[in-house]
């Protein structure tokens, strides 16, 4: 079940076409992705057919159409990171999580994504996990980085 986006839709009462992308961004921020249902509701709010909403949403790399895991793992594949070995980092993550980019690990904890450039090139190679930056990453560090988040997830489960 997708989280309720009524509050977001209400904010965009009377909005025009130029609010489509901010609205999509707000929905994704709350739900983690843009569902089929959300596309319909957004189209209704802005008086746009679903095809137009999909046409815009699928154009941009930012929008996801599948739910995400608890932690979004983004691997930067910019030039500086590439020169400093980010291809191996991506491979190591794919092996450790057993997923292709765009998919979520079987335990639902990690979604792996590739981004074009995070902008922290001085600290290449860079990955982010759940919004936190990890600089100068090596394939050897991957397991311990992922483990720290697994422990964190366990701790959160226990506390809740």
């Amino acid at each position, binding site marked *: 079940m997708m989280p309720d986006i009524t509050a977001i839709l209400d904010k965009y009462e009377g909005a*025009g*076409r*130029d*609010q*489509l*992308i*901010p609205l*999509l*961004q707000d929905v994704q921020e709350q739900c983690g992705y843009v569902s089929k249902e959300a596309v319909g509701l957004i189209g209704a709010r802005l008086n746009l057919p679903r095809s137009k909403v999909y*046409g*815009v949403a699928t*154009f*941009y*790399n*930012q*929008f996801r159409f599948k739910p995400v895991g608890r932690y979004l793992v983004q691997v930067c*594949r*910019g*030039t*500086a*990171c*590439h*020169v*400093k070995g980010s291809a191996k980092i991506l491979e190591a993550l794919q092996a450790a999580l057993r997923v292709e980019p765009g998919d979520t690990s079987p335990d639902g904890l990690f979604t792996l994504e590739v*981004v*074009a*450039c*995070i*902008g*922290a*090139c*001085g*600290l*290449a190679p*860079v990955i982010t996990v759940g*919004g936190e*930056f*990890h*600089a100068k990453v090596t394939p050897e560090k991957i397991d311990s980085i992922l483990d720290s988040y697994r422990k964190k997830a366990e701790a959160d489960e226990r506390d809740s």
Partner: protein
Amino acid sequence: MARWADDPLDLDGVHSAERVVERLNEYRRNDVPRAMIFVGTGTCGLGAGAGATVAEARAWVERTGADVDIVEVGCIGLCAAEPMLDVQLPGYQRVSFVRVTGDKVAALLDRALQGDFAVQSMLGQFRRDGLAAWPDVPFIDEHPFFVHQRRWVLANCGIVDPESLDEYIARGGYRAFANVLRTRTREEVCELIDQSGLRGRGGGGFPTGRKWKYALAAQADQKYLICNADEGDPGAFMDRAVIEGDPHRLVEGMAVAAYAIGASKAYVYIRAEYPLAIRRLKRALAQAGEIGLLGYNILDSGFNLDIAIKKGAGAFVCGEETALIHSIEGKRGMPRPRPPFPAQRGLFDRPTIINNVETLANVPGILARGSDAFAALGTQSSKGTKVFALSGNVDRTGLVEVPMGTTLRQIVFEVGGGIPDGRAYKAVQIGGPSGGCIPEQHLDVEIDYESLKAVGAIIGSGGLVVMDDHTCMVDVARFFMEFIQSESCGKCIPCREGTRRMLEILERIIRPRREETRLETLERFQGVMEMQRLAEVIRDTSLCGLGQTAPNPVLSTLRWFREEYEAHVFERKCPAGVCRGLVEYRIDPKICRGCTLCAKKCPAQAIMGAPKSPHYILADKCVGCGNCVDVCPFGAVTTE
């Protein structure tokens, strides 16, 4: 409201003038009343652990009860030295320390606040008027990273609190804007900027003042200013640092530009991957609005301006003017043919000026110091400074601002400190996916818009990625083509189909021999011969800059690194040892102990050998994954 609003100045008494000076001094932090600690918490700082640094500093202050203020600042630009922590004691110059991770904070503060700096590596001390210098402490402005820099755009970054409007104003901020509103016509402002020689810093290099004049001349009921903060070039992070470290400079630049062209609405189109920059910018806009520097009837001049933020959604092509405009309009980010140019018909069909962050951030400095001072820096055709983002295989990665005309050799070897790990220089990639690679023999080219074109490159937005001899230039060309292919909007055939073909040709070149049929070999040769012609067609017929410059990395590497291509194509070898399919793995029987680790890790069962005897790799089974190299404890696996 600014703090002085609730402490009205009584302008009749002598004490008031002194109070003004006192308050200004307090905001400028020239001579501080009590010890200050500054921590660089820009994105690079945080990535290097500055979050822990600042937390430990706060904990230390609470524990010791010391009378010390802590201020968070942006990036000074030396990413390789992050996290950075500065200490300023009353009467003395501010001192900067490097690589101050959380675990080092307490020890540093215990001693540094007594003036004892021996415990931590230092960058050096600043050089402000009226403060005493520390003996035996080097000056930052003499450090090789800083000595060539002329910081106009980065003047405040890493120094000031980016969330303090007061500090920005106390250092002369918004004075240029106020001056312009009171004493200059729009035409005069456009002319001033034109005379300075400022050219678009996003990469286009179009004369800024001239562009503004076109928009000013256009008649319309509404005009727009857009600041392009999409910074899509991988390897570029100049704009991010400016917005995180000194957002008011950008706001002031935008305000002047909007006034000059007659726009009452402005947008900052900023990539979503910059959350900290977005937060800082939002705050700066709110602060400026609260004090009346934005909004309705600014400073009683009759000029209105509202600035809104639009977040990008991850599309490199939206760095292109018309694609950006469509994105703001809520459409797919696809470019359109020009003319009409945005200055005539742009956002919502109205006259629109789009300027890069760095271009706009230059404006307050030019107005404050004078267009002559700006034009005195640089070369004949390219005035002023340029901010470069230095990254890759170079010792001192970070942001540098140097006058145009500085050579690449100076930037890479003097400012950047050269190639680490004892490796050799191979190339520097400049201009992002639209740019080219500069080999060793052209390192003395003086950087300006025209001179770089002569060697097959462009300045671009300022990203400079240094590559050592372990980089394969064919792989670099493929990397860029892969990026361009995935970012191509698909609208025009030359780009959509042409770049796909170029990528195919490049992938064929690096594909392992074993996977090729005879027909494919023939196609490989044909493809290579086609590449030059194909590149020309794509360049000459694509709809927008993305397609028109897509062939540049290939053309530039073909031009300067032809032997490397030939080695791949004819000898089926990758000299740099990067292209997995073309690297031959061999186990040295003299070193191999027969531990069988490699055989176990081989995904293709290509390694044979009995335990305790030397192992052997079957070349035609090997898939080139490199696992054996990584896993061998004796270094017995070599590549060739």
